[in-house]
């Protein structure tokens, strides 16, 4: 990846992270931890990978994204806002009664949201349906489906994985946000889904393991996914929950709690500093 592109993506990722903090702070609730861990991948998807047009959000030929880990909606909303689907200022209305930004994504509220999600395990099935529709209609769009690593404890994920493998849905790409933390503790402490790679491989998937905060590796993984024919691809992205805000990093407790005013100020100052360090 060219340095200029990498720098540009890093800058957008800081903006996305600021949007996550802005939203959850104003809502006094939400899920910053997993939103921050998937932020770089969401940035890459919307600003490099996906064929989407904010002016035509329902284009039938567009690439689709189903945020199966729907509680990380703040990351999706921040990426969509910065891409131009709606005003960035609206991020402050997250979870408010008159807002288009529901606590979990709703395709009937928000332009650019391709599917309503939030109940874990369901998004990947819908993504399979979208990918199958692409095959049936002879369209070349791709479908992306970020999953939580805790989420893959849901049995429905494996029903869907079996279906996608059997149907050879190579236009489908799952991304496991592998931060090793869920609400009640580490994955091993709760109910280990390991080994993730071997599980998906045994369901007939191509699996790529990467660092989910390294744009070069993210790009290589998505290129490998597109190059792989006859199999869906799962990118297992090692990430840090709360990435980019020092006191949130690798802490379970930031799964579903919002920063208070003091924490908000510290987080925004850190992110401003990160943005400044990217100025050449």
């Amino acid at each position, binding site marked *: 990846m060219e340095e200029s592109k990498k720098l540009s993506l890093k800058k957008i990722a800081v903006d996305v992270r600021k949007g996550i903090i802005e939203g959850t702070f104003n809502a006094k609730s939400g899920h910053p931890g997993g939103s921050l861990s998937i932020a770089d991948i969401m940035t890459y998807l919307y600003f490099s990978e996906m064929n989407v047009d904010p002016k035509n959000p329902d284009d*039938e030929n567009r690439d*689709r994204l*189903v945020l199966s880990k729907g509680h990380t909606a703040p990351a999706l909303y921040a990426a969509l806002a910065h891409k131009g689907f709606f005003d960035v200022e609206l991020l402050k209305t997250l979870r408010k009664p008159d807002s288009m930004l529901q606590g979990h994504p*709703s*395709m*009937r509220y928000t332009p650019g949201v*391709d*599917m*309503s999600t*939030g*109940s874990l395990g*369901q*998004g*990947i*099935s*819908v*993504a*399979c*349906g*979208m*990918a*199958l*529709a*692409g095959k*049936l*209609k002879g369209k070349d769009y791709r479908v992306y489906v970020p999953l939580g690593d805790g989420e893959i404890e849901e*049995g*429905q994920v494996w*029903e*869907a994985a*079996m*279906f996608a493998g059997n149907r050879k849905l190579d236009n489908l790409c799952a991304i496991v946000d592998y931060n090793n933390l869920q609400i009640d503790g580490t994955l091993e402490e709760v109910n280990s889904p390991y080994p993730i790679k071997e599980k998906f491989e045994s369901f007939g998937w191509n699996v790529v393991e990467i660092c989910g905060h390294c744009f070069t590796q993210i790009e290589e993984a998505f290129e490998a996914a597109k190059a792989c024919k006859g199999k869906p691809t799962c990118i297992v992205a090692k990430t840090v929950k709360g990435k980019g805000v020092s006191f949130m990093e690798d802490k379970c407790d930031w799964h579903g709690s919002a920063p208070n005013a003091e924490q908000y100020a510290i987080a925004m100052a850190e992110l401003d500093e990160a943005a400044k360090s990217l100025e050449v």
Partner: protein
Amino acid sequence: MADVIKCATRDAYGAALKELGVRDDILVLDADLAKATKTITFKKEFPEKFIDCGIAESNMMGIAAGLATAGYTVFASSFAMFAAGRAFEQVRNSIAYPKLNVKIGATHAGISVGEDGASHQCCEDIALMRSIPGMVIINPADDVEAKAAVHAAAAHEGPVYMRFGRLAVPRVNSEDYKFELGKGVELKDGKDVTIVATGLMVGEALIAAETLKEEGIDARVINIHTIKPIDKDILVKAAKETGAIVTAEEHSIIGGLGSAVTEVLAEEYPVPVVRLGVNDTFGKSGPALELLKIFGLDAANIVEKAKKAVSLKK
């Protein structure tokens, strides 16, 4: 009665799907039950538009939702127990909440499943589906109505739950029957009491009305094929004109037709309502017709309930 045509509503489902198959936007999904749900009738004619999702009903509902986002009209089929029961939350969150154009074809509803017994005799599906905002629920009385209902569901934009039976039931509607979504059908006028029935109990209601006539009670018979949205007007009119109501359904007395009718009348025009249904119990194995008698789902019990309703009139 020998010349009465008998046909299972699931057969009509398969036949109607085959008619719809000429449309480009129609897809049919099943979960390894094509021979039982009768989607096989469609599969034989349109194999490229039939998708077997295997024994994974929750995933099937998600697949259906995903296909619907791309403009398909999707029929997702399984037994009522699994379509409404196991996959309830997928139907709620992945289909109904985003208002996707998925039609759920749920066969083998109720006690009349027969020998398979309680695990497969779903008497809770109407209650479950009725609680989902925007869900349309159709429970046809015979094959003619079932076929018409499938076409009406296909023409309707949004989620629909269709309830079909395994048992061959007598035809109560004529071939030229016109189905209107959301409209109850008055099959027989009467002034003393109204029997409001759905599904295979409609046929029993007509027999019960004959018996009641012999006993000097003039019963009206209404077929409610669309349980949601329910036809309030026909119910209120019946309450006003006959003053007593009996409901009859092959479903739990909790949450189904009886509850829906009671809810309407309690708020709009309170009159005695006596409910006949599966009385808050699980089914069991046995021949379907014997089971319907054992669980009291027949004309004789409608007659008893009707007399009770009349006795409760002020």
